[in-house]
């Protein structure tokens, strides 16, 4: 274990990481965002979902540093007296959860499809890649609208509200898998013909076993890069859907929902209701994207 950590700090990756201040900063920012979101129930100053604690008297309080601000509400309150900071932390939690789960789903789908296509070849390859092709030309937003619509049609409204968050995860996750499939397929086709795989085949290992324990570890690098970049896209896709009003239900507001609500206060003088969720979303996505960008360059020796 210690050796592994030591190896990591000695590695090129770590070296390139410490050499790029932008990357270090974005890593710290991303870490703070994620920690704040994950630990929201523990560290958030208020619970924005506890209706009994909301007082209309506290509505529209400006941020703490402005003249009428109150120290209890660091980033001010919204139209119902909800603490903005807490709402943003809980919102980021929903956004990250959706983004993360969607990417995990894309990875699972995409990697399986890619492995199968690349290793098995033939008809399996042709069919899978054809589906991926068609899928790639349809934009995420439309796929998500469609899937959301089907479930709305299929489920009673109350049930739909309860499962809406999973629907959004599925919709985004399902529309992003082809980029993983493509990459994994390419790498698999290369690995398949290497000697160690042929050796494994000779000693009689099953095809599934070979794919998972021999080919898979060798294609994970690019998958990690795409996954990081896709996380940013997934969070944005969720925000856009919520902005259009078809994303997560308002009882579980994400950053996108907060921005949609805040949008009404664009000209009203209560700028903090609009601005802070927007800044939170941009900072979160930007830091994740910067990390992904760096990771891609770091793992691609050709660019060094």
């Amino acid at each position: 274990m210690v050796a592994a950590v030591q190896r990591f700090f000695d590695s090129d990756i770590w070296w390139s990481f410490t050499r790029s201040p932008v990357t270090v900063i974005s890593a710290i920012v991303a870490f703070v965002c994620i920690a704040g979101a994950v630990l929201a129930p523990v560290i958030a100053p208020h619970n924005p979902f506890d209706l009994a604690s909301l007082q209309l008297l506290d509505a529209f309080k400006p941020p703490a540093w402005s003249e009428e601000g109150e120290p209890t509400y660091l980033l001010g309150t919204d139209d119902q007296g909800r603490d903005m900071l807490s709402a943003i932390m809980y919102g980021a939690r929903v956004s990250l959860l959706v983004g993360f789960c969607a990417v995990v789903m894309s990875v699972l789908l995409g990697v399986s499809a890619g492995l199968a296509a690349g290793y098995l070849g033939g008809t399996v390859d042709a069919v899978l890649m054809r589906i991926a092709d068609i899928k790639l030309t349809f934009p995420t937003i439309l796929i998500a609208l469609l899937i959301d619509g089907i479930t709305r049609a299929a489920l009673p409204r109350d049930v739909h509200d309860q499962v809406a968050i999973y629907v959004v995860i599925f919709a985004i996750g399902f529309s992003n898998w082809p980029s993983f499939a493509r990459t994994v397929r390419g790498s698999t086709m290369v690995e398949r013909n290497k000697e160690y795989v042929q050796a494994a085949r000779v000693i009689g290992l099953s095809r599934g076993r070979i794919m998972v324990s021999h080919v898979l570890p060798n294609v994970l690098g690019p998958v990690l890069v795409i996954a990081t970049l896709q996380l940013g896209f997934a969070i944005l896709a969720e925000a856009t859907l919520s902005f259009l009003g078809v994303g997560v239900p308002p009882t579980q507001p994400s950053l996108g929902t907060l921005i949609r609500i805040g949008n009404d206060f664009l000209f009203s003088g209560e700028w903090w209701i609009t601005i802070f969720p927007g800044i939170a979303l941009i900072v979160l996505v930007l830091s994740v994207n910067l990390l992904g960008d760096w990771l891609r360059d770091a793992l691609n020796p050709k660019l060094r």
Partner: protein
Amino acid sequence: MFAFIVSRILQALPVMLAVALISFAMFAYVGDPVAIMLGQDFTEAQRQALIRDLGLDQPFFVQFGKFVLNAAQGEFGLSYRLSRPVLDLIIERAPATLELALTAAALALLIGVPMGVYTGLYRNSWLSRVFLTFSLVGVSLPTFLIGILLILTFSVWLGWLPSFGRGETVKIGGWSTGYLTWGGIKALILPSITLGLFQLTLIMRLVRAEMLEVLRTDYIKFARARGLTNRAVHFGHALKNTLVPVITITGLQLGAIIAFAIVTETVFQWPGMGLLFIQSVGAADIPVMAAYLMLIAALFVTINLIVDLLYYAVDPRLRIGGGKGGH
């Protein structure tokens, strides 16, 4: 060649049918057009009569069968909300969306390609870093936020550009264009920037990556060795080679632009197909929503087909393998 086209069209059919089923099923139970159409005062008998008139009392698959048969003839029925033939509505709105998408795509290409070339050639210059950072910010900003910020800056604060609508349009035949009036062009600027920004950053990064790739190839090294000027190497050899994938991707992205126009059109109240779609969702106007989705699907299938045919024309290997795989 003929067999290839036929097989591709046959593959497209189930896609279209699936979209038809989805677009029909999607909205069959969302909202209640009956309640919306009846307004504030009505009797139960009036309500039942309306349900019968709309055919909403028939079994699901009977309704769906009718829908597909009619759709195949371009007959999507009457909009619940506007009481006009759906096809007319969509045809009326199409120019607005197409002009917006075209302008956005042109902007993305005209700005994105030079930026990509520059960042590819001068990887470490400060301007390249600025461009790259800019592109990352562009990718990280949601479309709707960009639109809102642009309106705030250029319409409300500076008062330079209109915040909504198409401005003045001129009718040429059945096509209403905003390109011919100053007001129309001004109205295009903010929405097309909003819509094109994401594609711009995408193209810039693509061109950069392709340039880096090409510049490392042997034949560029040979070209340099032959003593050609940098200019000739960069633009005569390198750029030319990067353009093929760029144009392909842009073509494929055209569909995405049209679909993403939903968001831009909502923010700018741009009277195109996307706004029509969102307004129809709000009013549970099933015929319009279904027709729009079918149309977009048809558009994607067509774009896909054209790209396939282009590949077929370009890549001789495909001709041997028939329609298989192809990468």
